[in-house]
């Protein structure tokens, strides 16, 4: 256990910071969905050229073979600059699932394509819109004379609009739930782009007998999907750390420069204490995120689920506290859309709802704990 950055890790963060700065310098107001899609794909190609798309992929499969620690550093840096590339979907969740596929061919082809940036896979799992419950799995796959065909609807698919492929969870008649690889652009697959709370795009997918390929032979697909998504959740927690850093920085600056009653508002103890609460929330969030990353490395499913859910619920809860305090300490400027804070706090809320919120994860934490005793 060591919390200091190595030379290589510093260089990696530096690379991401420079990439983010160049994206921000070129940023224009996204006028249309098409422009947003093109921009996202172009930026993703740039990240792939920097090697970042294959960060977690083994060197033999064309990746860098790095660990969750590096992923956290990248995500935090991306959160701080609010660049929001589809890094977690394409470079964390997808490869973490594909690496467990039963087919060596699929594994090799997909992982190399992901690392190179040509294959962008989004995870399509959820079907409910008022619950994060995944037990209702209505999407079905039928065997149509040797060809598998998928039908159903998937809601709120993160980074789905810019994906080349989807991993879709569905029931395969007789054998039960599995995960399927589906290429975009096929007949029967319709993708509806939705504007996200954080300003990006989210997809609603509808499948009507779309050709699909099963990723797993056995019945352990749900276990493997959970594991992959848990990696993504920890990465989102790290992005939230970056958001909190920026919200703290904006607030600290405001406390020093804003004057009322003839002095900086940061000289008032009530406001100092609210800021201290923000610092504590951010530090506890960081601790929880590191804890969850360590649990991922242990590869023990109950421990992993407990610690990942502990971290996600804590980061959601503390993220909410940080953004609320940031608004309050900024006063009325904090409730304007124009001020920078607005984008950070909307992204924070988006992360809350990405791969389940605090309520869901506290429940999952409790359930894992009870199943163990």
């Amino acid at each position, binding site marked *: *256990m*060591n*919390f*200091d*950055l*190595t030379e290589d*890790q510093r260089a990696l963060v530096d690379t991401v910071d420079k990439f983010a700065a160049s994206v921000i310098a070129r940023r224009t107001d996204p006028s249309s969905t098409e422009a947003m899609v093109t921009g996202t794909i172009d930026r993703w190609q740039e990240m792939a050229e920097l090697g970042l798309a294959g960060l977690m992929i083994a060197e033999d499969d064309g990746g860098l073979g790095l*660990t*969750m*620690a590096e992923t*956290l*550093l990248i995500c935090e840096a991306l959160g701080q600059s609010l660049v929001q590339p589809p890094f977690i979907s394409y470079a964390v969740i997808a490869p973490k699932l594909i690496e467990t596929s039963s087919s060596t061919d699929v594994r090799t082809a997909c992982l190399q394509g992901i690392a190179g940036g040509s294959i962008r896979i989004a995870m399509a799992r959820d079907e409910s819109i008022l619950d994060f419950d995944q037990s209702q799995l209505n999407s079905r796959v039928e065997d149509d004379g040797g060809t598998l065909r998928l039908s159903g609807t998937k809601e709120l698919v993160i980074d789905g609009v810019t994906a080349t492929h989807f991993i879709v969870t569905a029931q395969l008649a007789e054998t039960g739930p599995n995960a399927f690889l589906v290429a975009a652009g096929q007949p029967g697959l319709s993708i509806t782009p939705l504007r996200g709370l954080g300003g990006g795009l989210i997809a609603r997918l509808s499948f009507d007998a779309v050709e699909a390929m099963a990723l797993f032979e056995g019945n352990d697909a749900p276990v493997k999907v959970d594991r992959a998504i848990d990696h993504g959740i920890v990465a989102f927690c790290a992005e939230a750390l970056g958001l909190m*850093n920026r919200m*703290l*920085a*904006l*607030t*600290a*600056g405001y*406390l*020093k420069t804003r004057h009322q009653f003839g002095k900086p508002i*940061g000289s008032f*103890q009530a406001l*100092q*204490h609210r*800021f*201290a*609460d923000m*610092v*504590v929330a951010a*530090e*506890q*969030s*960081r*601790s*929880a995120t*590191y*804890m969850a*990353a*360590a649990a991922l*490395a*242990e590869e023990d499913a109950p421990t992993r689920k407990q*610690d990942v859910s*502990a*971290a996600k*619920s*804590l980061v959601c809860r503390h993220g909410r506290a940080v953004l609320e305090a940031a608004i309050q300490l900024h006063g009325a400027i904090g409730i304007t859309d124009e001020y920078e804070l607005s984008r950070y706090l909307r992204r924070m809320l988006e992360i809350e709802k990405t791969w389940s919120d605090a309520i869901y994860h*506290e429940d999952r*934490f*409790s359930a894992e*704990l009870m199943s163990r005793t």
Partner: protein
Amino acid sequence: MDLTFDAADRDFRDMIRDEIAALVPEDIRTRVNNLQHLTKDDYLRWQAILDQRGWATPAWPAEYGGPGWSPMQRVHFEEACFLAGAPRQIPHINMIGPVLQHFGTAEQKQRYLPGIPTLRDWWCQGYSEPSSGSDLASLRTKAVRKGDRYIVNGQKIWTTWAHWANYMFCLVRTSDHGRPQEGITFLLMEMDLPGITVRPIRSLDGAHDVNEVFLEDVEVPCENIVLGENQGWTVAKFLLNAERTEIAGLGQSKRLLQFAVRMLDRMTEQGVSPDRLRALRVRLDRIRIDLKAHEWTLMRVIAAQPGDPRAPSASILKLCGTDLLERLSALLMDMGGPAGLAYDPLARGGESDAAPPYGHVLNGTAATYLEFRKSGLVGGTTEIQKNLIYRETVHLWEVG
């Protein structure tokens, strides 16, 4: 950054847990698990057991007969003791010991250090005064030099276990010049000197842990100064830094969590309504989550190099540790339900052998809540910690 566990560290944690669990005497464990107070004799017996094992002074370096543990190993030791139902470590062992080792003269070390591991010499800390709490540097207990002695007059308060102590280390005023911090001296004295009177203070739960200590023309030899006249603030600050991992209260929180889990099991067995159980379980599990994060903050503080601006402030450890103790003790009270209406402080304090009407554990639930109201006050109040956090961190956030 490498977020994988160190195998040697885990081995040590497992080893110390097993060993400590095997060492705790059954009657002491029972009293601890009954949420009762311990007697001085309990502490002395446990300390003797630790001394035999070479673990009586966990924070002391090997050259002074300590186990030479790393800060993380000390955390594991402390946690093992709490989880096994052992008495808590007498904090003053880890305070006065390192102070003397660092600042004491050869004579002071020779005279005072040998009595500490066995608690043959029991030290108390004379810091707070009736008018000097958070603003400790304003303290007014005066030591006036007369030949080769000081004449000390004043009053200390909230002095834990002064009634069991035969020595006190205290802060006294030796000068009124300059900043208040510059006129303070760190002084050692025997508790049986003429002019020292100890008066008990009962706490909210009826227990007697803290005292008032009156000092009236107490004559203390000048050689009992540590470091030097008017240098006491330096010693006091060193001491604060030495306890920065203990203030996290991690072991204490884990013990209260253990009680809460047992209570929930008992309530489940006794058919408490599912709605009530669920409400309590949600609170319990949220505390568990926050406790996990707290543990990692402690690991990050320990791993940090001195002066690293990215390291969490030790004040965060105190703040979060306090928050957990307050919430856990409140949860225990709520778990006690209607049984908490009845309370027998004498049974809890071991001053009476009579069993309380609903048993010791239920007798201790509301009392534990009352007992832990102190946690946001001792060692710097929550509000002082927040002042410090603001001061230490606000400049680190540069708007770019």
